[in-house]
């Protein structure tokens, strides 16, 4: 039986390793491509080990930009993407915590109607309402601004739902104890509800930051200036060039850079994130 288990373990590891290789190989290839010069990448005989152009390529793309389509330095686009993703993540958390608080803890007329209206927006992502949304943003003169990038994406029901479900698991006695302890609605929210929601907030933050960072269609529509471009759009623009060679090594470097912030966010928030999804401190 011992042999059998060892065999099973080995089989599991082999399958796991194959899986990891399949997932990791394209990422490795991207990294390798970003460390060679254009000629090596294009001629079809690129080695599978990193080349000597790492610093040159990254320095060029971060602080100078490509020579053709989009000439903005990538460090600026990273900043744009970061601002947009943060605004979306934080904005969503702010709005959904408040709306869930109202829906769960206040008794006002049409409370459930309000909740269902919020709920219905789940079925109306930006892609569905793209024309009216664009019209509104453009009428408000918010094209090529951070507000225009972030605000339409903030409105969505996912966060409200998540917090509503979480708040409903908090025992009523906690609210009642707060009332007797002299805490008003705002104090209860600040002193009890928010501290208890930390892990849920962290989980939502991770999900929404990555959602915001990966946005493609909406930023493509509302940004026209290179200076407002997000990094995801920039990669696309770098690859599709009309009358020049694609600088693959630079596009690949940009892709590597675009991957880093979400990875950092996940690593930094991992423990809180998992906690927020699986357990509650009660």
């Amino acid at each position, binding site marked *: 039986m011992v042999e059998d288990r060892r065999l099973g373990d080995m089989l599991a590891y082999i399958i796991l390793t194959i899986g990891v290789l399949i997932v990791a190989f394209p990422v490795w290839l991207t990294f390798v491509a970003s460390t060679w010069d254009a000629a090596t990448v294009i001629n079809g005989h690129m080695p599978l080990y990193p080349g000597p152009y790492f610093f040159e390529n990254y320095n060029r793309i971060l602080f100078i930009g490509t020579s053709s389509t989009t000439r903005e330095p990538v460090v600026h686009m990273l900043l744009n993407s970061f601002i947009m993703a943060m605004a979306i993540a934080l904005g969503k958390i702010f709005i959904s915590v408040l709306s869930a608080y109202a829906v769960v803890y206040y008794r006002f007329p049409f409370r459930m109607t309000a909740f269902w209206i919020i709920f219905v927006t789940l079925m109306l992502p930006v892609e569905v309402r793209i024309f009216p949304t664009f019209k509104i943003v453009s009428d408000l003169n918010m094209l090529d601004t951070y507000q225009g990038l972030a605000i339409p994406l903030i409105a969505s029901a996912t966060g409200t739902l998540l917090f509503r479900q979480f708040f409903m698991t908090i*025992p009523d006695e906690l609210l*009642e*104890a707060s*009332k*007797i302890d002299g805490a008003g609605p705002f104090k209860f929210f600040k002193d*009890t509800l928010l*501290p208890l929601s930390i892990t849920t907030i962290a989980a939502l933050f991770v999900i929404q930051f990555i959602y915001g960072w990966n946005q493609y269609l909406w930023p493509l529509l509302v940004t026209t200036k290179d200076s407002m471009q997000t990094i995801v759009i920039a990669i696309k623009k770098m690859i599709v060039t009309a009358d020049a060679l694609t600088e693959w090594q630079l596009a690949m470097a940009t892709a590597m850079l675009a991957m880093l912030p979400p990875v950092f966010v996940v690593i930094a928030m991992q423990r809180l994130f998992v906690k927020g999804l699986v357990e509650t*401190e*009660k």
Partner: protein
Amino acid sequence: MAQVTLSNVKKVYAGGVEAVKGVSFDIPDGGFCVLVGPSGCGKSTLLRMVAGLETISSGEVAIGERVVNQIEPADRDIAMVFQNYALYPHMNIYDNMAYGLRNRGTPKDEIDKRVREAARILAIEPFLERRPRQLSGGQRQRVAMGRAIVRKPQVFLFDEPLSNLDAKLRVQMRVEIKKLQRALGVTSIYVTHDQVEAMTLSDKLVVMNAGRVEQIGVPADVYRKPASKFVATFIGSPPMNILPGLVDGHGIVALGDTVLQVHDLRDDLPPQMPVEVGLRPEDIEIVSDDDAGSLPFDVEFIEELGATQLFHGKLAGQPFVMQAATGDVPAQEGRLWITVDPGKVHVFDPKTGVRLGKD
């Protein structure tokens, strides 16, 4: 310190359900009042109305001289201990106790003094820096009481505070609550469905059923002279035996072929009126079979409780339970002849359940 007065308090929920149907009583300053009844009898609703967590549909609740119907829970000068303790899970024990005082703007050194004193009284000093979930049920219970004590309120409200504890701890905490309440002298209202807690803790017992008060009194009186069949069967363990009978003259009821003397029986009842006769399992005496007025009791099985034994069987065709100290009665199945002291026979109206006693 204050007395609490309830006058004709009612609670009607939005759907028209009447949870509390007009309750009036008062609790003297420093008194310990226990509301007891089966679940759904309105006792918790009543307590929550005193706390201000439920609105009062009609009637008045006064704490001291002040009618508190429209006053926020925080301003009623009460403290409440919840069944599941309702401690703030993200705060340590110290902050849990200090929170209410901080919200009131009590000076820091005063808070510190009061929290440490409460911790000392309740023996939870070593845990002040810990979180509630690191404590056992009994310790959390103490913290919940500490949170009530530090406020120095006029009234303590307890909502089934011991029902989440195991049996042994429950007995221990029961004694501690009683001692603490004596020492602090704070008027208290305590809700429970456990009749042992109700009997031992209260100096005023309020038995409730279906939104109404069935009886108010000191525990011994409620036990000795239950005002209704409901109270008779609810208070006392094992519950009182209820047997159908007939009025057979002044102070006499007939149970099957035998008659029983009753001291506390109204004189104006028509003869042959059907009644219900209540006999407590612990009031039964064994006699020899030729004694006048003895009842035949067929024992079917015996439950061993250690100090006492429960004899289950049939009397006049009805299920019947007798309790006797172990060794007093031979523990064997078969026929026994029993009788009951005329002062310990309870007679109730079968229709209304009301006690048919004198006065």
